[in-house]
């Protein structure tokens, strides 16, 4: 019976562990430098993503798994990104209307499709 991954030594795993330790030290060191608002987060996300990828590929054996497992793993991450994306599209666009058309733009929005009331003094002159 073929045993994929059954006859390798522990040394590659030790190498992955060492890389994870190095990346942990790196994420702490980089966080101590102030790169400005989004940059620190992007770097932290990139390092954490690299660590997670190392764990998934080698500790979780996805690197040597079947294509079906690989597709499942990628699909679950795509689902997660969809979760983030569609919720954030909502929450982060809520202020757009207020910023561009004034704080009461949403409350005063005319959704009926009919003619607008004459006494409307909102900032949205053009639409």
């Amino acid at each position, binding site marked *: 019976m073929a045993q994929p991954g*059954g006859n390798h030594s522990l040394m590659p795993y030790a190498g992955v*562990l060492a890389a994870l330790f190095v990346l942990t030290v790196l994420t702490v060191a980089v*966080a101590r430098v102030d790169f400005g608002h989004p940059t620190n987060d992007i770097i*932290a996300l990139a390092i954490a993503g690299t660590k997670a990828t190392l764990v*998934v590929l080698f500790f979780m054996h996805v690197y040597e798994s079947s294509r*079906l497992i690989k597709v499942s793993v990628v699909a679950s991450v795509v689902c997660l990104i969809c979760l983030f994306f569609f919720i954030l599209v909502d929450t982060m666009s809520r202020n757009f209307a207020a910023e561009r058309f004034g704080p009461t733009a949403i409350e005063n929005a005319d959704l009926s499709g009919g003619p607008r009331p004459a006494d409307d003094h909102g900032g949205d002159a053009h639409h």
Partner: protein
Amino acid sequence: MSHAHAASAEDHHPPGLAHHFESYEQQKESSFLGMWAFLAQELMFFGGLFTCYIIYRSMHGDAFLLGSAELDWRIGAFNTAVLLGSSFTMVVAVWAAQIGKPKAIFWGLIGTIVLGGVFLGVKVIEYASKYEHHLIPGLNFEWTGPPASGIEIFFALYFAMTGMHALHMIIGMVIMLFMLKPALNGHWTPQNHNFVEGFGLYWHFVDIVWIFLFPFLYLLNTGAAAH
């Protein structure tokens, strides 16, 4: 136990292979696919918490920096190293199962349980200090200053996320305690150790959650603090 079953039922099925599978390979693939489906669900579960984090951080950015400064990044870094180490001992257990070394499976699991225990012990100390500093929302939260509500949200998320993570570790450690005896008894063979390997996937997943929790909870304000 599989030995007794194989001895009594004198069918042509090899030991450790359920009758509805054609081969060990097929059995293994089915087992792992099921585990990955479970982990995809877990990813969405923690993804909800991370979505909360992103939204509230975008609303209370400065308060999150102040809240993060209340956490000790040294403790977080230590626990990160401990948890990465526990992932390595878990990999040792799976490796031992793949090549049929029952004692090495046992010691791999013991190492994972001990390191998991160290992690949770440190977490208890951390939670206790948050209690002393009145930083537990809903229990004794007190903060004087303008961003108090934002900091309360940060700590609500801190306890929700690290608490859920710790709960997953506790569940994992209980399962590992029940795995010790079968490991020593040679229950898992190179042909079928799917339970050990599937459990390893779970443990590594919990490790990955912490890999993201550590920088985004503990390291937000270390740059400003260093100035």
